[in-house]
């Protein structure tokens, strides 16, 4: 019983860590621009696919991984420059359609260039499972959790201890006020897209040895990242991490104990329930309307 529970828990937090990274990506962009970036999932896909491609091309693993993070970051910046900046202040629906257009372009190009097959990446440090109280943990899971934890700490440091980080936070609270005290909000927008694309790609790379990847995995991963971000309260970084882990755990438990066919539906059932009772997510503050 315990072994089974632990098994579900391990696979839940592993996948949940990827959702958490995606949710952090949503949060960064949302804070900088109020845009929900529906292309976020494509960065996850792109990270995994590029890593596979570069490793197959014979590049050493570290080089391949850096490139597989750098290229999505550039794509993210391009989206911001070419498609988001020109329509600043547009309606939510317009912005949603633009980012969905971007996700279609990325997904389409990937399928043209890399084909529609399913790919895998060798695990970073072997496939010998670790036995914990009867449940098994893959070494790759430790990579996923360890790197995610590092990223979270690094982000916390960036946003609370560095000037650039504080500038980004200030912009998310009040863009106009931030501009008045001399913060370059254009740069903030640029950084937030680069960072969230890189975060997504990183998650995609780490999880690929476990879940495999193909050109179309981005949609569901992205939508679940969105669920995680909303669950934690849109714009709340800590909420995004907690939301991601919760979504991952719920999904794994649901698949294990209830129905594996409805695994993909669980995050959406959860978010509907949460929103019914807590319209601004778990950690979202109360809001007042300005008339």
């Amino acid at each position, binding site marked *: 019983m315990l072994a089974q529970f632990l098994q579900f828990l391990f696979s839940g937090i592993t996948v949940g860590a990827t959702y958490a990274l995606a949710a952090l990506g949503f949060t960064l962009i949302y804070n900088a621009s109020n845009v*929900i970036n529906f292309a976020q999932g494509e960065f996850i896909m792109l990270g995994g696919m590029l890593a596979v491609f570069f490793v197959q091309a014979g590049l050493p693993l570290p080089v391949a991984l850096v490139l597989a993070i750098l290229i999505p970051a550039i794509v993210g910046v391009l989206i911001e420059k070419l498609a988001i900046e020109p329509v600043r202040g547009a309606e939510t629906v317009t912005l949603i*359609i633009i980012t969905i257009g971007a996700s279609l372009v990325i997904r389409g190009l990937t399928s043209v260039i890399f084909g529609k097959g399913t790919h895998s990446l060798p695990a970073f440090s072997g496939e010998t499972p670790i036995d914990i109280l009867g449940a098994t943990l893959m070494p790759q899971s430790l990579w996923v959790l360890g790197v995610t934890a590092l990223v979270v700490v690094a982000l916390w440091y960036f946003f609370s201890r560095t000037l650039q980080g504080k500038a980004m936070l200030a912009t998310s609270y009040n863009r106009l006020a931030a501009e008045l005290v001399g913060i370059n909000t254009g740069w903030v927008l640029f950084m937030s897209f680069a960072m969230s694309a890189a975060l997504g790609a990183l998650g995609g790379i780490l999880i690929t040895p476990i879940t495999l990847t193909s050109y179309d995995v981005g949609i569901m991963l992205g939508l679940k990242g*969105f*669920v995680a971000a909303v669950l934690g309260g849109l714009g709340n970084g800590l909420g995004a991490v907690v939301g991601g882990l919760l979504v991952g755990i719920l999904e794994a438990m649901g698949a294990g104990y209830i129905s594996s066919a409805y695994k993909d539906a669980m995050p959406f059932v959860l978010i509907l329930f949460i*929103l019914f009772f807590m319209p601004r997510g778990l950690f979202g503050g109360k809001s007042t309307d300005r008339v």
Partner: protein
Amino acid sequence: MKKSVYNGLYIVIAILVVLPFVLPNSFYVDLAIRMAINAVIVLGLNLLVGFAGQISLGHAGFLGIGAYASAVLPTHFGWHPLLAMAAGAAATGLLAAVVARPIFKLKGNYLAMATLGLGIIISIALRNEAQWTGGPDGMPVPAMGMFGFELTNDKQWYWVVAILLSVSVWASLNLIDSPFGRALRALHGSEVASQVVGVDVVRYKVAIFVLSAVFASLMGSVTAHYVGFVSPNFADFFHSIELMTMVVIGGMASVYGSLVGAVLLTALPQALATFEGWETVVFGAILMLSMIFLPKGLVPTLAAKFGKGE
């Protein structure tokens, strides 16, 4: 301007009447039918999105309920297609009414999330309940008919959907100009202000959500009978996005914009079929470009350019 409200309707009817005599072959008749069906769905969605200012990213889920009601109930339980259609619409209306109250406490991106979730749950359920729905492969739909008369060929279908479309345009124009429509536009402008002047904001939002969901369900049934086949793709997220895009490309809060958006985006995949393998890329690029350069949509942009309202 008041007088010209129906001018557009007369033009639409004129086009619908002339069209079958100028279309060269059945391929174009089929395309015209699908355009008209989408136009009716988009009209309903635009009432919710454009006029009342609420987002729905799960509308294809409602289409799916209607379509599958028309497929499953006659096939497995021997129901009459019309009865199945009505049952689908009733079920959709009920579902929409039940979820609407909590959902419409939400705003903007939270509302987008909730409607998206609802749509995805419906499409996953359709995919999984294979013993009823045929699972991912879908299932055939029996022909629509009554009193021993069956709708079979494209010409008959064309006239049916042409009438449906004309009636929908007429009904939408009237609805917008009614107290109900004015209340919707008021709450789009400012919820607080409309509350102050006595508009029951939640009740109106729920009403328009249910109305557009039922619209979608009925047209889901019509599509299912026309195509003769349903598959879960019909209810999926991407289809919801397509419908939303039709609304926005044509023009939010524009009745004729809905028609233009539906016509353009229904034709687009046909036009893109020549780009073997690149369809998705080109489609995505067109979505982005049209939103960047025409954020208000085609019809309102053109109307503003030529200096008159619709």
